[in-house]
Structures are given as C-alpha cells and as structure tokens.
C-alpha cells in the first residue's frame, strides 16, 4: 500500500518499525516501537512492527519496505550496528548514520567531542574492570574520588535508560556502584555529579534543518531519574516548557542543536542536560534513538509544541525516503 502525503506530494510505501532486540532495553524498545507505529498508522501510513531477530533480514529482503524506523534502544540499536546492516541492504532509514551513532552511544567519546565544541560536560573518568583488578581497586577508586570529588554519578559507558546508574555520595558506596555499572558492560564511567535541574531536549529535522523542541525539565519524586522514575507513570513530574529562565531554556536548545551537529546526528536526537544553580548547562549524554514510550520526554515535547506525533514521524519517514539508501 502506498500513501501520498498531500502536503509534500511524496509517496511513502510500507514502513517497518524495528523494535525489541536482545539488549537490556528490549522492553522499553518494544514500548517505543509500539507507540511510534501506532502514531504513524494514525497518520495514514502502512506500518509493520518487527523484532530484531533472525527473521528480520529475510523479511526485509523478501518484501523491502520503503523505509525502516529503528526504535531499538541500547546496543545494536544505538551503537550503529543495525543501521550498518540497513545500509548493506540499501534500505532508507530514519536516524543517524553508523559512525555518528558509535560516537554518540559511547559516552566518553560523545563527551569529548561535545566538550571540544565548547559545551560544558562534567569531568569524568572511564575505566574497564581490568584496570581496577590490575592496579588495585582501592587505589584507583581513591585516585578517582580525589580527582572528581563526591558526589559522583557512576554509569555504564555504553547503555541507556539509566540502567546500572548510581549516585555515589560516600567512598563506601563506590565499589557497589562500580559493580552495578559493570553488570551492564565492560566500561564504567564515573562522572562528577552536577546538582541542578535535569533537562531533556529533543531535536528534529524534517528537511529544513535541525530544530530544538521545547526543553522538558524532569523532577523525579525520589530525586534521581532512574529506571523506575523513567518508566513508572506518575513517579516523575515533567514541566514543558522547562521551568527555567528564558535565557537558560534558550541555552539548552542551543546546546542540544550543537550536540546534534557536532556528533553528526540526523533526523532525530535527544540530549540529556543539567542546568546547575548558576545557570550553566552541562551535557550528560546524547541519544540517537530516543525513547518514545508513554513516559518519554520527546513525545511530550512534540505534543507541547503543538505537533502531532504521527504526522512528525511521517515527515521524518518522508525525509528518509527522499534521501534514499546510503551505501555502507
């Protein structure tokens, strides 16, 4: 079935939303995928949602869609791998290209690139388990807290949804936090904890250049925006537009756009930021496949800006179809 968008005149055939996969964020991905697929169906598109498993490529090859929307979170989805494969298959897709994904998904790399572009990011150290084992965990942790101070945010270097993240307020909590982070990956990032207002800013580009959505400020009941606070409706208060002075809100938008461009992101992204008490905007991480669940911030900002989620996704698909496949 082929749809024609009356506003653009473009023809959009079947769209495949890929969601699920085997990452720790499978459940979140399935929810994001379902919401995006439903929204696009509501906008009149012919949408099929598929899991990322061994049946995916044969199905894509047998009946190539006009566009793929990767809604996989975590590894494979956000480290560029699935997009690499889509390029091998000559399939247009929504979102950043593999190299940009790799830079954005790896938090230390993203922080270094963004910092080089003039954006504040909390000082951090990224280390593998082996370093602690070989040099002695106590000595390394002591050096780490001496340099970065306390409190710290400890998280896996390559993961999302706040999985494996802990706030460390005393040296005694650090070993536990490191173990929790290493449960999700080989590298752990310890980052100076910035006290302030957590803000998420989505960026979309529907063909006329990237534009920032309204910043969303995040106020979790427990004070920490962890997995439970993210995915339990009601446990976090969101304010959109964010409760920030106008200049700070504008700075958040500017930073998110700069991150989008600096990391070479495409179509859609989300930057997670913190605005401290002095009004400084700090970059924490970027997301190449931001969540679209019922409690995610990008859909919230989309609606607050008077956009319709399905129509916006349809526009992003339209852009990807017009762009055509990229060769790996």
């Amino acid at each position, binding site marked *: 079935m082929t749809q024609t968008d009356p506003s653009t005149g473009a023809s959009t055939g079947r769209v495949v939303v890929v969601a699920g996969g*085997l*990452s*720790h*964020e*499978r*459940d*979140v991905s*399935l929810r994001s995928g379902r*919401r995006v697929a*439903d*929204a696009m169906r*509501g*906008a009149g598109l012919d949408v099929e949602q598929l899991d990322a*498993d061994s049946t995916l490529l044969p199905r894509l090859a047998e009946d190539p869609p006009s566009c793929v929307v990767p809604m996989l979170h975590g590894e494979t989805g956000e480290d560029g791998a699935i997009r690499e494969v889509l390029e091998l298959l000559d399939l247009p897709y929504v979102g950043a290209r593999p190299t940009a994904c790799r830079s954005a998904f790896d938090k230390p790399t993203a922080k270094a690139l963004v910092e080089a572009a003039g954006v504040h990011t909390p000082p951090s150290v990224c280390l593998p*388990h082996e370093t*602690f*084992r070989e040099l002695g*965990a106590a000595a390394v942790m002591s050096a780490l807290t001496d340099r970065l101070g306390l409190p710290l945010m400890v998280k896996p270097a390559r993961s999302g949804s706040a*999985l*494996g993240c802990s706030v460390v307020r005393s040296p005694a909590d650090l*070993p*536990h936090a*490191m*173990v*929790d982070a*290493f*449960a*999700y990956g080989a590298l752990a990032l310890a980052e100076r904890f910035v006290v302030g207002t957590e803000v998420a800013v989505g960026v979309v580009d529907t063909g006329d250049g990237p534009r920032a959505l309204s910043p969303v400020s995040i106020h979790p009941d427990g004070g920490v925006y962890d*997995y*439970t606070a*993210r*995915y*339990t*409706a*009601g*446990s*976090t*208060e*969101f*304010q*959109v537009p964010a409760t920030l002075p106008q200049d700070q809100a504008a700075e958040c938008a500017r930073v998110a756009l700069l991150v989008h461009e600096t990391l070479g992101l495409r179509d859609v992204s989300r930057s997670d930021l913190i605005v401290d008490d002095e009004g400084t905007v700090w970059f924490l991480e970027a997301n190449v496949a931001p969540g679209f669940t*019922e*409690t995610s911030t990008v*859909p*919230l900002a989309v*609606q*607050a800006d008077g956009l*319709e*989620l*399905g129509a916006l996704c349809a526009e992003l698909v339209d852009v990807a179809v017009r762009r055509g496949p990229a060769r790996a």
Partner: protein
Amino acid sequence: MDHTPAPTGRTRLDSYVDRYAARTAGMTASEIRALFSVASRPEVVSLAGGMPNISGLPLDVVGGAIADLISDAGPTALQYGSGQGTPELREQICEVMALEGISAHPDDVVVTVGSQQAVDLVTRIFCDPGDVVICEAPSYVGALGVFKAFECEVVHAEMDEHGLRPDALRAAIASLCEAGRRIKFLYTIPNFHNPAGVTLSAERRPEILEICREADVLILEDNPYGLLGFDQAPMRALRADEAEGVIYLGSFSKTFAPGFRVGWALAPHAVREKLVLAQESATLCPPSFSQMAVSSYLREHDWQGQVKQFREMYRERRDAMVDALEDLMPPGCSWTVPSGGFYVWLTVPPGVDTKAMLPRAVTARVAYVPGTAFFADGFGSSAMRLSFCYPTPERIREGVRRLAGVLEEEMELRATFGATGTHEALTRSRYDGPGSDQA
C-alpha cells in the same frame, strides 16, 4: 492517532496519580522485570520460567474432547455456572486428593481460577492490613504478591533440606505472640517447594501440625506439585491428618494444563461458605467451559498415566540440571536436589548478589530468578531459583554452562571490589519477581 493527552506545563503523565490506593505504592517499573522481557527470546536459555512443559500432552485427544464438549454440552459449557464449581469436577477433585490421603466431601471444595486465586480468596477473607502471615524462607513469589496486595506483614521461617524447620516455626510464632501480633495463617508448600525444591519430611509433618494446633494457627497448604514426585508415591498431605486446621489448595496446572486456569480450595465448612461468597464477588463463578473440559479429560483420558509421563520428563530434566551443576559450577556454590517438581535453589558464594548479576547473565543469554523475589524482606540476594521444567536437557546444560561463566566473572569482579553489600533496603517495597508466565 496518538491519543495520549497533550500535556500543558506540568504533568506526571498519569491523570490518576493522586487517586490510587496506598497499596499500589510498590507497583513500579523495575529493571529486573524488564530484563525478563529479554529472557523470553529463544536465544536466551531461560532457567527462570516456571511454565509447565505440556509438550507431552495428547493435543489430539484434548482437542477432540473439547469439540465433543461444545457439540454435546455447549449451552452449559458456555454459560455462567455455580460460584462453587461444577459438582462433577468437585467429585473428581476429591478423587485426586485421595491419592494424597485426603478424605473430603465435594461440598467442601471450591473451584478457583488456578490455585493462585485460591490464595487470593483465602487472604481476602482472613487478612486485614497489618495481619501477619508466616511463610517459609524463601516462599512462592505469587503468594507473596497476594499478601503484599492485602497489606499483610510476612514473617519468614527458615527451611532446611527437610523442609520447614519446626524450631524456626515455633520461634516465629513465639516471637509474634510475645509482640502481641495476630497470626492469620501459615502459608506452606510442603512438596517440591517453589522455589526451594525441598520437601517437608514425613517425620516433620505431625510436628508442624502439632505446633500449629497448639498455637491455634491455621495452615494454608499449597500443593500444586504433590503428584510430581520422581522417586516415591505421593506424600501424605497435611490436610489428610487435620481437617479443621488446614485449608488445602490444589491445581490442575501442573498435572494437566495451566491454560484452563482450574485450581481449588478444600476448606472447613464455615470457611468454604465464605470462600464461595468471595468467589462470587470476584468472578461470579469459575469458568464453566474450563471446568467441564478438565472433567472430560479426567473422565475420558488416562490422566494418571499422563502424570507419570510428566514425572519421567521432569526427572530427566532434573537430572540434567543437577549433573550440569555438579560438573560446571564454581567452588562455593551449593544447591538443593529436588525429588520432584520444577525447581532447584542455588546458593552462590558470599558477596555475589544475584540480583545485581542478572544483567550480566542476560548478556550471556541465560536467565534465572534472583532470590530476592522470594522474600518479603529483601533477603535472598545470595541465591537464585533455577527452573528445569521447560528447556530440554541439552539446553539446561548449556544454560548452566553459561551461568557458571557469569558467576566466575562476577566472583572475579567481587574479588576486585570486595564485598559490596546488597540493595536490600531498596528492594523491600518493590515486586521484582517475574511475570505470570514465569512465576
């Protein structure tokens, strides 16, 4: 169309956030529950799920019986029925219970939507918020969920390889009585315990009954696995020797098929009356169709022969798991060797937190249920439940091989960082157990 209401300024994305009952406080998203979503993928060897393996059921026979049921008795099977359950099935249930020494009258049986609903109904009619229920340590995650929903306080009593320890039960009762607490009942799974895998020894059974009789503590005997013993005839039920002080729960989920959702409670007359009223309030009646299908199966099919086949299949899987554990587990681990049922309880070396380790296991494509799911008080972090009922023996061995590798990595990590304690304080108020297909 995306029908989520457009937010204006300040939102919690839940219009009812200030209206929920206080008991929903622990009903939150959990990383651990999210990980079970990955466990459902075929690449993962799931030693987590407690799904009965019904691959051996003669589906043609079941299908024929259901077709006959609809053609011969459709208007009854598809209609509302009695809140207590059909008379025929209640008679058959009495015959099933006779295999465990129980002499009962069909009038005292209430058919329920799985024995899970029986736990719910019993708790509903006995427990006010704050009332105490004594459970084994560990205990069935689904029952703990019910007790939490009714705002009961769960007090655990220790077990060993012979099941619930009489001295631990005595001590728990004494301590509670001394504190002036009201004990509503002892919830116990005497046979092939879920999750511990142990069985209450024949020698201890009279003692447990006597302790409860003396202290006037009602016993809720949950026995879904009683006919699935590998090496012996069914154990004599507690209810067989105590009619007034025991409510007995049974189920066809493991001996036939869980999809019918048919279980039952056998209760003293006065309790039974209340259970029927509670059942009518909850569901009007258990499903007529399911009850009649189960009756037809019991009547027309060699169901005991089928149970014997199930036992042999599960025994082979138990052997595969125990052999693999012996061959592959690192030093410092210990486990129970069940003589029936579905589960092995694995205790890991000190310092390893099985809940914190689960993401690493999922990355290695193996899943289990962390021990904390089976305690109401946050304990259990040094143990896990392994289920052998569903995967093939080859997959079980592969799963244990993967798990052993994960454990070795985790032990190395713990050696690097030292004992780090557990998240007990964080897990006390939250349900971190598996979903209904895993319980």
